[in-house]
């Protein structure tokens, strides 16, 4: 019964912590959907590909968003014609490359800059790679729901599917031209409800791992540097801790090399049990799989290189 109480409290806490950020992401997405035109978005972006990717990587410094609310924003950006080389790096990097998370990481590691710097590096590299590969592909190739403009016209509204405020068809700005505020509210609600089921599912599974994982399991991974890195990365995915708090948890892993702690902090905001179902719900299967596999492999490889080359002190960093 006590384990059940811990489980229920953990799951509820995860959802309560993430809900404001999911709301914010849903609201931002709705505002983009209704008020921001494609032309306006493209006006603020650089013309060159490298400049666009850079904007995507560091936009989180101006528009910090937790990973819980980033997927709806990215989807709306893509539907508005934002090049994937901007939207996808933003989605991957913003949960880490923002002032709040940078500050919390510095605080958790007692002012040491190396954990922060390596965390940013391990996040920026896979996000940059995805932006480079995706380039300016059409959103219909990336998103599961095809925008109205790419569907055959056979209805008065100009699109074939049932009108749904979360459908992402992009038509709402025309249908509700006279009442954009109402449209924002309905879009926000629909997006929040749609994403919250994945948040709740992920929170339940993460709380289950946290509650029922044997307490000594972490000790199995401390004997070997590579096992430590892979083990902590897997733990980050399973525990699905918010990016504002994971630095404190990483700092507490006594006996683990810094490369493993950095890997924990880098993979969690990009791939976790809340994000994975959201990816498969919003994006086509191949892209969703790439969003899981590419960061995992890249961060694992980079963390192991850091560990092998001893670029970081193997015993520094953290509460202990």
């Amino acid at each position, binding site marked *: 019964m006590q384990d059940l109480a811990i489980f229920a409290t953990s799951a509820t806490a995860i959802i309560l912590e993430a809900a404001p950020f999911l709301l914010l992401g849903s609201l931002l997405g709705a505002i983009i959907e209704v008020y921001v035109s494609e032309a306006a978005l493209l006006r603020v972006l650089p013309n060159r590909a490298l400049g666009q990717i850079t904007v995507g990587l560091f936009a989180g410094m101006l528009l910090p968003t937790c990973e819980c609310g980033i997927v709806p924003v990215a989807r709306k950006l893509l539907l508005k014609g934002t090049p994937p080389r901007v939207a996808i790096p933003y989605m991957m990097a913003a949960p880490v490359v923002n002032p709040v998370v940078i500050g919390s990481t510095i605080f958790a590691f007692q002012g040491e800059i190396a954990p922060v710097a390596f965390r940013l590096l391990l996040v920026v590299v896979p996000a940059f790679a995805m932006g480079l590969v995706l380039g300016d592909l059409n959103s219909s190739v990336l998103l599961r729901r095809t925008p109205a403009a790419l569907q055959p016209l056979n209805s008065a509204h100009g699109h074939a599917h049932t009108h749904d405020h979360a459908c992402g068809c992009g038509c709402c700005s025309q249908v509700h031209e006279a009442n954009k505020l109402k449209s924002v509210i309905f879009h926000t609600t629909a997006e929040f409800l749609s994403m919250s089921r994945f948040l*709740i599912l992920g929170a339940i599974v993460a709380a289950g791992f946290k509650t029922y994982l044997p307490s000594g399991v972490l000790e199995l991974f401390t004997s070997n540097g590579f096992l430590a890195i892979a083990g902590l990365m897997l733990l980050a995915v399973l525990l699905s801790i918010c990016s504002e708090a994971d630095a404190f948890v990483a700092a507490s892993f006594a006996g683990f090399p810094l490369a493993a702690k950095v890997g924990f902090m880098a993979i969690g905001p990009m791939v976790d049990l809340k994000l994975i179902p959201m990816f498969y719900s919003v994006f086509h299967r191949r892209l969703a799989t790439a969003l899981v596999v590419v960061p995992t492999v890249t961060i694992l490889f980079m963390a192991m290189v850091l560990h092998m080359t001893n670029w970081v002190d193997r015993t520094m960093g953290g509460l202990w």
Partner: protein
Amino acid sequence: MAATVLRWIETLLLGAIGVFMLALPNSEIYWRFLNPKYSWLTLIAGALVTFLALCNAFDRRWPKISELLGLMAFLFLAGAAAALPNPYYDAGPSSSATFGSAEADLPHMTESRLTLDGEEYVKINLAELLIKEKNNALQAGDRYAFQGSVTRTPELDGAGFVAVSRLLIACCFADAVGVSYFVRVNNPGEFETGQWVRASGVLVPDNLDMNKTAISMQGAISTLTSKSFVLDSVQASIAPSDIPFIFVVRDSEPYAY
């Protein structure tokens, strides 16, 4: 008709969640889930969710069953978390045994220190103490007072120690980290695991040949213990604590305790 019924069910569920999020920051149990410094965020989110629930009644969208199930699941979890006995604040033993000096006077307390038998002890919480140790700001002979829940193991019993532990929570219960200190006592058998204790004593070098990682706490991903010191207790008493978790960490007096 079916869509209307589903939409009203969805509205009610979403409204219940909004009201729950509005009420929680104003209740006495917010700290069980989240660091109290985020209560304003939950309040704002609750107001927004409640508002969206009211508007949802007028939306013509067809609700999805999976969305309804998700909302129901959350309400069920929140209810279970509030109702089920939690080992940290519902099920602890309530004896009033003391250890250390059998007939010690009640300590004189100022905001940041307490005085026992003419000696001053700095009130500090376990996380703050461990951080000071990490920063090499501790030395043998320092006098500190802290509080936490008792953990006993056969190894510690044999050595004449108990562990005093608490959960450090940065954001929410799900990211809790355990912090623990070993305290030398006259008779570990006088204490039960889970009792809340306030210990005062002197730091002495840690000569225990013991696997400290064996100390684990329910709900904590990992537990930190001191590497260099243990507390040689002078006097303490067992008492219930209002909030068993650590939410605040300070780097100078007055410590959060």
